[in-house]
């Protein structure tokens, strides 16, 4: 076993920023807006680094797909304890249409190339809320998956994952190699402190193009329009049930 873990990190608009729809309605304003690492990706990195600290794995590789700025996100992962980074360069139109299908193809190709034992991802990204990349990556690799993980432990050649599901908690044991996606309660990510950021500058970030991995980035989706959520209308108070029925009839609801 190579003892290598691949962690995917995504650069997203910071959760506290008030986003604004672009005037041409094709998307959201991103220019100059504060970006940071997807919170679930932070949890994924933390879990990988914890496994390394427990000596259960040997190397943590952080991967990000995107333009030049994605390197900042990889640096943060390196500062948290990842050993090296891979920046998959995707720019311009390709970046606008980059979605879970394309990213999972890239991650699957990299997992094979790097001979990874485990791929740990965040369960979803806070900008598109897709919750698909982990699942798709596992399918493309034909690997088992442990999603929504709130606890991960290695047991020999298997991984025990406690999953957060609607009804409660589900424990599964899956064979390595596997894909795990991190949920909120998995751990509390450490801070990327300044000495570690300085050390991270010396760690390597390899530059890769999707074509080198044999990945086709064409999207099967076309975004037609992006709108702000409708303004919440004020409610109305009615005195009696008859009034209620009357109002519902008036507004065409019944």
């Amino acid at each position, binding site marked *: 076993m190579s003892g290598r873990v691949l962690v995917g990190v995504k650069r997203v608009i*910071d*959760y*506290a*920023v*008030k986003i*604004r729809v672009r*005037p041409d309605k094709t998307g959201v304003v991103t*220019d*100059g*807006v*504060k970006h*940071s690492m997807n919170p679930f990706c932070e949890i994924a990195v933390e879990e990988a680094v914890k496994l390394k600290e427990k000596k259960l794995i040997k190397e943590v590789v952080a991967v990000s797909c995107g333009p030049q700025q994605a390197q900042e996100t990889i640096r943060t992962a390196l500062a948290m304890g990842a050993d090296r980074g891979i920046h998959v360069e995707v720019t311009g139109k390709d970046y606008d249409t980059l979605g879970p299908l394309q990213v999972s193809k890239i991650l699957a190709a990299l997992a094979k190339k790097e001979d990874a034992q485990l791929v740990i991802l965040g369960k979803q990204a806070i900008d598109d809320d897709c919750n698909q990349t982990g699942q798709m990556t596992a399918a493309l690799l034909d690997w088992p998956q442990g999603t929504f993980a709130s606890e991960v432990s290695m047991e020999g050649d298997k991984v025990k994952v406690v999953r957060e599901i609607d009804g409660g908690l589900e424990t599964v044991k899956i064979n390595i190699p596997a894909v795990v996606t991190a949920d909120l309660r998995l751990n*509390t*990510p*450490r*801070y990327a*402190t*300044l*000495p570690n*950021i*300085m050390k991270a500058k010396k760690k390597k970030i390899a530059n890769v193009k999707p074509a080198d991995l044999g990945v086709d980035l064409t999207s099967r989706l076309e975004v037609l329009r992006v709108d702000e959520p409708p303004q919440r209308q004020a409610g109305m108070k009615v005195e009696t049930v008859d009034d209620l029925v009357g109002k519902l009839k008036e507004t065409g609801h019944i």
Partner: protein
Amino acid sequence: MLTVRADFPICCLFTYLFISVRSHRCIQALKIKQAELAVPQLYTTLHRRTCSSGTAPRITTHYTIHPRDKDPRWEGIEMERFADEADVVIVGGGPAGLSAAIRLKQLANEHEKELRVCLVEKASQIGAHTLSGACLEPSALTELFPDWKERGAPLNTPVTEDVFSILTEKHRIPVPMLPGLPMRNHGNYIVRLGNFVRWLGEQAEELGVELYPGYAASEVLFHEDGSVKGIATNDVGIAKDGSPKDIFERGMELHAKVTLFGEGCHGHLAKQLYKQFNLRENCEPQTYAIGLKELWTIDEKKWRPGRVEHSVGWPLNRNTYGGSFLYHLNEGEPLVALGFVIGLDYSNPYMSPFREFQRWKHHPFVAPTLEGGHRIAYGARALNEGGLQSIPKLTFPGGLLIGCSPGFMNVPKIKGTHTAMKSGMLAAEAIFSKITAENVDSETTGLHVPEYSDSLKSSWVWKELYSVRNIRPSFHNYFGLYGGMIYTGIFYWILRGKEPWTLKHCGLDANQLKPAKDCTPIDYPKPDGKISFDLLSSVALSGTNHEGDQPPHLTLKDDSVPVARNLGIYDGPEQRFCPAGVYEYVPLETGDGMRLQINAQNCVHCKTCDIKDPSQNINWVVPEGGGGPAYNGM
């Protein structure tokens, strides 16, 4: 006593007015002092009355107020810090800090010397905590980068129209912008200062400056001989109650031969340095204003790119210094930057700068521009108004002060960026020769560079500040705004500030508040949600956020003072002057009485509370780096 020139009748009139006004203010100051002496009695009675549920609830948990070496929860925690050496460390990634860093690297490259310059900035990215009008005077920029246009500096909007008005409740009196008046903007550019600072950051990185945004300098380090050794960045992983979390990690120490402090207006480390090195013994206390700003996309028909509008008057009364600005930017979409500035020496504790700003927008001269528009950003920041009289000693062993931190703003021009940049450049030039010299002759381990002060005093910065030094203090007369404008008209426009006297300010802004019982509450109109807005939705637009589980960084020296004194005498002015809704007086959960609730997460780092708190009990310290507003091109 002022000297009176018999051949200047107007001068006589004003001299008379100023003398009588000075004595009037002396008496006022005396009354304030007497009120202060009377306070302890009042405090104890009120204290008993508000103390029904026992001791005041604990608000402050920060280690600067409750030291960790005496705290049992911190026993056995590793407190060693990682340390690194640089040649120069700069605190603050604003125009001054970045200009200094850039100039240092330019000189190093010119002279083929190696120089490690590290810059720490508390915002998560360079420019995220920058807020200003702003009309930039490109003088300093042209000195720094003569080819700034080719380098793509975001100065896209030259000023084409300059409009000044005195507003009354319903009308507007136009004031001609004659050449020679300080606020005339011919040759200047309307900029989004955050974008400009971001561009400066890119230029600095290209030159090899090590920029570290997201790391706040929280402590000044000293050598054994008392000179400044460098700074330490903030610790991370302290819980809200002050105890260490599992992820606790100490900050890092950055040592340098010289440390430049460019924290902007009312920096918290500068506050410590003033005390440590007694830098303010020969200058007047700094006086400040608060500036609130919004960015709007407006109807294209109303958009006039390059138009600059300033106003004074309504809604402020003639004795409250302040005014508005509205600039039409030319950056693609129809964008206007507008805002309101109010001097923090106001006396009515019921005044809310935020609400004055909101109601100003409804004036018939302003509202039509905003109708049909959409607000996209909000923010606030204190700015200094003290001018020449309030500049402290600028150098001390191991460090020096640059930018708005000591305060070089030209108040009537409402511009401080060009002087801040120049001060950073002069600092770099002064220290360069010293730090690259083979054998430095220094009394202290941290280098003392008094040459910076000297070069600043012989530069155009000093000349400019000298010529406008009397304009702001001239507002402290019975006629307030009108007296000030007449003074400016005569002494600045005609005489260019050559009058031989220097007027004084009124003392600390915090001491200017009158007790609530002597003032009338102001009846502000409700926000209409289209042009004016409520405070909380505005704060959300600033994008501000802090890690929730950390000690509040608005620390109180004494937790019982807010209810006893601020609420008791002044009716809690911090609820009104904070532009982010950090301070709230809420009823106690049990018993009657009130307590102060500090919503530290809302803080936009404007520093107004530290300045205006009448009890000077609030001490703003830096929160975990990366927290604070997320301004985008403000």
